[in-house]
């Protein structure tokens, strides 16, 4: 695989086709493929279809988007690359993995962008569009030469492919068709079921004409035929048919379906990346279910409308990303104070400020927990997988209603745009909400009839005769009367806090992956789960004494953590947010700023929990986590 075959004259010498004995078959348990293009050339569609087909064929798969912040950044730039990265294997794939084994690139600049990010394995195979070598623009030809020189510093096997030329035989504008040609090449290389591919093409272009579908299929077939004729290798990733029915979707779609499954009928939102796609999905289908996506005038209004709807009856939700969460905080405090159930989904991205709007980060945990002023006890939970994006919304709605409070569900850009197959949810009609209860209430019953054992109070909504009261954000007593006296405010805060104690008492201690005691325990939350577990599994396979656990409900934290931590010499969190490294020359024990879950765990357990975290704007790689694990193990015990 490491042989370099760079065909210099594309016309005469077809690249890399060997003798007559057919292609070499390379069999691997898992592999990672990328397709990158300029924005607008459709690499993402190609990757999405390829990923879906892998999943449908029975491979475990994890797809992530490679996405620039702009809609149409300048062409042929290293930072403007757009595409998809598909890791698939025989077994379940839980994360995006380490390095890419094969890349299809539409120009050398977007490829160099990926190289700069160390995305490629050193022995990666590169299928590279080569029209630039003979491009009329001299600058472009020069860039091509220089680019290839840079690439030659690596051990990549570069195969030049005349994609433009081949596509021109079928379409006038290959910018609108090369992606399907690339898909066809991948179909041949990985022996993908072309019937399934045609089905996926039909799904992708369902809103377009039959002609568009047919042309795309034709391009795909052309790519397939070209690869068959010109390539000397095929890669086999055996598939195992699943014994349980599965579905494949991205995290935003899973969130949208979770909203429907949870029985919520109103999603009130304001456009923000990367959360908006969930609303796009709901906007498309929600009305079938009698649901409304309300696009409000701003983030504050979006949550205000959801709170108004929840106050008036059922539980509504709002979906946003970090900047939107910041804007909603005052309203979230109000919902906590008024004890109005509300589900908030925060699809996290890089921050602060506009930060990395299209890229993954786990930096909103603390603001989700503590962003409101005053004492504002509420629930924060995080989805770790795409499957959990679905189920966590159902759970969130139920907790919100049972405890009459705000539940914030954290996902992130990695989950939002990642695509993964998972067991098909068994939808239950009991997840739906019951009709609003408009039974009369006794005027002798206060609206906040707190049960001192639980802090809970029956829900009361407009329309219930006898129950009239004014919900107020001012400090109030059980009658919801404005009360500035010390006892009333103390009691209100205590009752709202007690609900969290009750919820906490129902939570289970997270399970440990690996031995229940040892040298190192790695603790994670949210979308890093797959990568952490893969790293821990590799470490254990090397004989290292490492275990991991993953926390789903982050506020209130589950019971038993302190005892669990006491069984390990050292505890560290691995997170996708910023922390100071302990060996940074400017950093001491006194000034070190730690990762977000790490802070919560230290406060809760009084254990000297360490952390390793990064903000690369992309998911963590298991290989890097493994390195961090080894480094921390060398540092010895710390509990």
């Amino acid at each position: 695989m490491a042989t370099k075959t760079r065909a210099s004259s594309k016309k005469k010498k077809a690249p890399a086709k060997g003798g007559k004995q057919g292609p070499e078959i390379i069999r691997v348990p898992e592999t990672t493929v990328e397709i990158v293009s300029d924005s607008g050339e459709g690499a993402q569609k190609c990757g999405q279809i390829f990923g879906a087909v892998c999943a449908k064929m029975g491979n475990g798969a994890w797809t992530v988007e490679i996405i620039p912040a702009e809609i149409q950044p300048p062409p042929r730039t290293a930072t403007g690359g757009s595409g998809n990265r598909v890791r698939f294997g025989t077994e379940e794939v839980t994360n995006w993995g380490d390095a890419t084994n094969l890349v299809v690139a539409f120009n050398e600049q977007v490829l160099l962008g990926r190289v700069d990010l160390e995305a490629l394995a050193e022995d990666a195979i590169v299928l590279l569009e080569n029209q630039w070598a003979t491009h009329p623009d001299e600058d472009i030809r020069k860039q091509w030469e220089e680019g290839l020189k840079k690439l030659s510093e690596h051990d990549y096997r570069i195969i030049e492919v005349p994609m433009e030329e081949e596509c021109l035989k079928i379409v006038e504008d290959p910018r609108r068709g090369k992606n399907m040609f690339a898909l066809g090449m991948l179909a041949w290389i990985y022996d993908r079921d072309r019937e399934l591919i045609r089905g996926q093409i039909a799904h992708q272009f369902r809103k377009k004409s039959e002609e568009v579908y047919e042309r795309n299929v034709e391009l795909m077939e052309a790519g397939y035929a070209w690869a068959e004729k010109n390539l000397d290798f095929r890669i086999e990733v055996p598939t195992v048919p699943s014994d349980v029915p599965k579905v494949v979707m991205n995290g935003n779609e899973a969130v949208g379906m979770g909203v429907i499954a949870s029985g919520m009928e109103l999603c009130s939102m304001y456009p923000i990346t990367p959360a908006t796609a969930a609303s796009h999905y709901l906007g498309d289908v929600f009305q079938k279910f009698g649901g409304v996506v309300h696009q409000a005038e701003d983030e504050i209004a979006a949550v205000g409308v959801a709170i108004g709807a929840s106050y008036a009856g059922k539980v509504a939700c709002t979906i946003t990303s970090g900047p939107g969460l910041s804007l909603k905080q005052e309203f979230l405090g109000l919902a906590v104070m008024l004890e109005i159930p509300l589900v908030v989904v925060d699809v996290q991205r890089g921050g602060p400020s506009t930060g990395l709007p299209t890229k993954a980060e786990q930096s909103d945990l603390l603001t989700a927990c503590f962003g409101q002023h005053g004492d504002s006890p509420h629930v924060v939970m995080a989805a770790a997988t795409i499957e959990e994006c679905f189920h966590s919304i159902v759970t969130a709605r139920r907790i919100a209603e049972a405890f009459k409070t705000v539940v914030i569900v954290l996902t992130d850009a990695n989950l939002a745009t990642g695509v993964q197959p998972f067991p098909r949810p068994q939808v239950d009609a009991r997840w739906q909400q019951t009709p609003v209860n408009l039974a009369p209430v006794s005027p002798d019953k206060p609206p906040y009839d707190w049960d001192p054992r639980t802090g809970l109070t029956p829900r009361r909504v407009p329309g219930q005769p006898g129950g009239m009261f004014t919900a107020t954000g001012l400090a109030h007593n059980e009658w919801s009367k404005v009360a500035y006296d010390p006892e009333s405010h103390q009691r209100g805060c205590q009752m709202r806090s007690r609900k969290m104690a009750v919820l906490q008492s129902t939570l289970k201690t997270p399970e440990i992956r690996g031995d229940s005691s040892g040298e190192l325990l790695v603790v994670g939350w949210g979308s890093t789960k797959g990568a952490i577990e893969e790293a821990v599994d590799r470490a254990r396979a090397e004989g290292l004494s490492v275990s991991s656990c993953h926390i789903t409900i982050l506020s209130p934290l589950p019971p038993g953590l302190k005892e669990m931590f006491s069984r390990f010499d050292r505890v560290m969190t691995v997170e996708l947010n910023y922390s100071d490294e302990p060996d940074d020359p400017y950093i001491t024990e006194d000034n070190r700023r730690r990762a977000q879950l790490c802070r919560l765990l230290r406060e809760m357990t009084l254990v000297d929990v360490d952390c390793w975290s990064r903000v690369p704007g992309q998911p963590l790689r298991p290989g890097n986590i493994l390195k961090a694990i080894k480094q921390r193990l060398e540092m010895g015990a710390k509990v």
Partner: protein
Amino acid sequence: MTHYGCSLLSCGVIDERHFEMEDYQGAIARWCPGCGDHSILTAVQRLLEEEQLKPEETVFVSGIGCSSRFPHYVKTYGFHGLHGRALPVATGIKLERPELRVFVTMGDGDCCSIGAGHWIHATRYNVDMVAMLLDNNMYGLTKGQTSPTTPEQFPSNTQPHGSYLRPLNPMSATLGVTNASFVAQTAEWIPQHLFETMRAAYHHKGFSFIRILQRCPVYTSSIYEAAVRSPDMIEMLIHDDGIHIPDLEEIYKNQVIHDPSNLGEARRLAEPDGKFRIGILYKNESLPRYLEIRRLPARTAEERVKLLNEELDRYAV
């Protein structure tokens, strides 16, 4: 949306209750003596009584400020929320429960400053509710700061040398918004007019915006003093399709016939020219209403589950 549920009262059982004004009496109002809000509260309670609105099916939503204490003083359901954010909450209530009668009270800081974005968009959504701007030209509860409607050069604690800017005109602003469907102005010291304006707003199908000129005895008593004393400064806009109170003709001699369907004329009349104009400036029930645009057929839990399974089929591997 689906399933509003059903109370005995809405299930065909005849409701024989009769409500007196006292039935709408909430907590004792804690506004200053002489505050115009007292008169607005009375007019509202009179409206509720006259229309026999069921207290449990009526919701008063407010923001923060003197005027936003309003819900506490009316014995209906109430939502006393955030500064400037009454309108989104009211919109959410109507989206979930269109059958509820929703009234919104806001101050000039609430509506025209911190919540100005919501004011514009609520006007555009045209959700059926009555929105009252209780405009005393000043932040009262926080003790005398310049508001967007404070007259130019009028001193306050934040602008002690006088307000730097010309005041924002809530009438022209509302009339400039696409889909504005009911825009009226009235004054709390003319109770009959105040009441009739509220009643017209209540009966209007759509978003009814009323600006109520309101005296603040502590911070802005001088602003309306002249108009209160000399009715000649008031110009009453009258029309068969607007408000016409013959009893007031003797006191308020400046009566101008204005057809509230005439938007261009309404905008002209809204422009400041030294006169206090009260009446319905604009009214149009034919404009699209958000709830009716978004209203959807009800779905049962079973239907939703069936549809969701069909949706999952599309994603099945």
